[in-house]
């Protein structure tokens, strides 16, 4: 059983990370804008957005059912829960039990996604339905990869650089791009294109619900970044130093993501299958390597 002080520690971390999460999004956007020779909004813009949304009134479609109202809360709760589980997994050594925790985290994430997709369908607007179907299409490819990559981590352990974990990390990086609606798969920055995925799904939301959903996506992003940091910066988690270098690790990952977003073009939806199948094979390769102990 968990000692009680560990529970307090993890709870504190969760709260910190949720507060910290919008900053990461703002940071990535800032880097992208600076590299494009633009000034761009401040790093704190996501906070302002959330604040603005909270103070606004909510418009709800006459056709919306309880799902539409409940979905933001469920999504936010599930993502917080997942973050909690991920941090718990980080505490212990990587044994079988901890693997179960990580798998549980992904299932809980899946629950949130399910309700968001339902909510997209709920108001029967054409954009929402399209967004939901696309989101589910992409995640049906992305989720298995994440599972395989997590398996690899559990088999090899995150104590040093290994070929298996690095390959799995590469796969998870591609999954992260898909799950956090980054450029080759989706585009966060626009509501105009017909190709949008995540933004189409939440198009009907406004006000407080939208604030909750945005906060949830920022938090989901941080979950994946934490995962990535295990793969690419092994054995740098424990003790006081872990606290100190954590922002650095997240900053490096953000920078990498921003660079990827700037250097590749958005793919057609059906090319995403190729993209993710590549990722899947890298993950599979990683699992073989892990099985062989390298």
């Amino acid at each position, binding site marked *: 059983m968990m000692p009680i002080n560990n529970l307090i520690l993890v709870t504190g971390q969760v709260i910190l990370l949720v507060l910290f999460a919008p900053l990461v999004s703002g940071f990535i956007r800032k880097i992208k804008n600076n590299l494009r020779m633009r000034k761009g909004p401040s790093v704190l813009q996501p906070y302002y957005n959330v604040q603005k949304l909270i103070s606004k009134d909510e418009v709800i479609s006459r056709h919306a059912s309880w799902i539409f109202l409940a979905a933001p809360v469920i999504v936010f709760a599930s993502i917080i829960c997942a973050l909690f589980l991920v941090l718990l997994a980080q505490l212990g050594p990587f044994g079988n039990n901890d693997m179960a925790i990580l798998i549980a985290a992904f299932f809980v994430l899946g629950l949130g996604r399910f309700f968001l997709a339902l909510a997209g369908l709920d108001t029967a607007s054409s954009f929402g339905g399209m967004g939901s179907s696309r989101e589910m299409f992409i995640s049906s490819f992305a989720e298995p990869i994440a599972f395989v990559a997590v398996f690899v981590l559990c088999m090899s352990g995150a104590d*040093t*650089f*290994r*070929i298996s974990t*690095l*390959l799995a990390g*590469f796969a998870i990086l591609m999954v992260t791009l898909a799950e956090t609606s980054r450029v080759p798969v989706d585009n966060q920055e626009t509501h105009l294109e017909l190709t949008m995925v995540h933004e189409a799904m939440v198009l009907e939301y406004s006000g407080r619900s939208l604030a909750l959903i945005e906060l949830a996506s920022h938090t989901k992003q941080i979950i994946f970044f934490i995962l990535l940091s295990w793969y690419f910066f092994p054995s740098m988690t424990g003790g006081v130093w872990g606290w100190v270098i954590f922002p650095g690790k997240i900053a490096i990952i953000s920078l990498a993501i921003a660079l990827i977003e700037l250097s590749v073009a958005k793919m057609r939806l059906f090319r995403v299958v*190729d993209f993710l*199948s*590549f990722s899947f*094979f*890298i993950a*599979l*390769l990683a699992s*073989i*390597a892990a099985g*062989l*102990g*390298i």
Partner: protein
Amino acid sequence: MMLSIILSGFLVATFLLVVAKRITALIRSFRIQAIFLSLYALYMGLSQRHLEMFIVCGLIFVLKAIVIPFVLLRIIRRINVEEDLGLLVNPQLSLIIALGFTYLSYLFAHNAMALTDPVESAALAVSITVVCLGFFIMVSRMKAVAQIIGLLVMENGIFLAASAISGGMPFFVEIAFFFDIFVFVIIIEVFVYKVNRLFTHIDTSKMKSLKG
């Protein structure tokens, strides 16, 4: 530790080569692979403290990451070839095959060669994989440029094998190999132009005038 990073990068670059559908993507992935190879040479130079390895690293970078991609891009620009690679095997199936090759190479490196050091054995496995995949690219991509790249990928794999298992060939031999690759690329460029002029395409699966 660094070695693991370089090897994984090298392997991923090779997989990118296998899934590439377009010629420019192929050349770009080849360049990435070459950069990782030169990083590998740099690492070997640092760990063995050999001045020669640094020169080799520089040569790899200049020749394989700059000159050869430049020549290949020039071929594409001059003959205005369409981007399609002429895949006989689609990327997904190619990946499955590549996965099989990787596993077999590992078995080969592990059992047949019986190397004790796991990283050394992994390096050998990666290099054999790269040789096999280079060969695979040659037989399953019908465009002449893809075949050239396949051959160069095989050569990259062999270079990796040489430095992985025996700490590099004698220096002048390495230099001679670079010369050889350089001459090969220049001569093959001439032949690609000739093929393109006579056949008006560079699809080797459509060359069928000689039979029996």
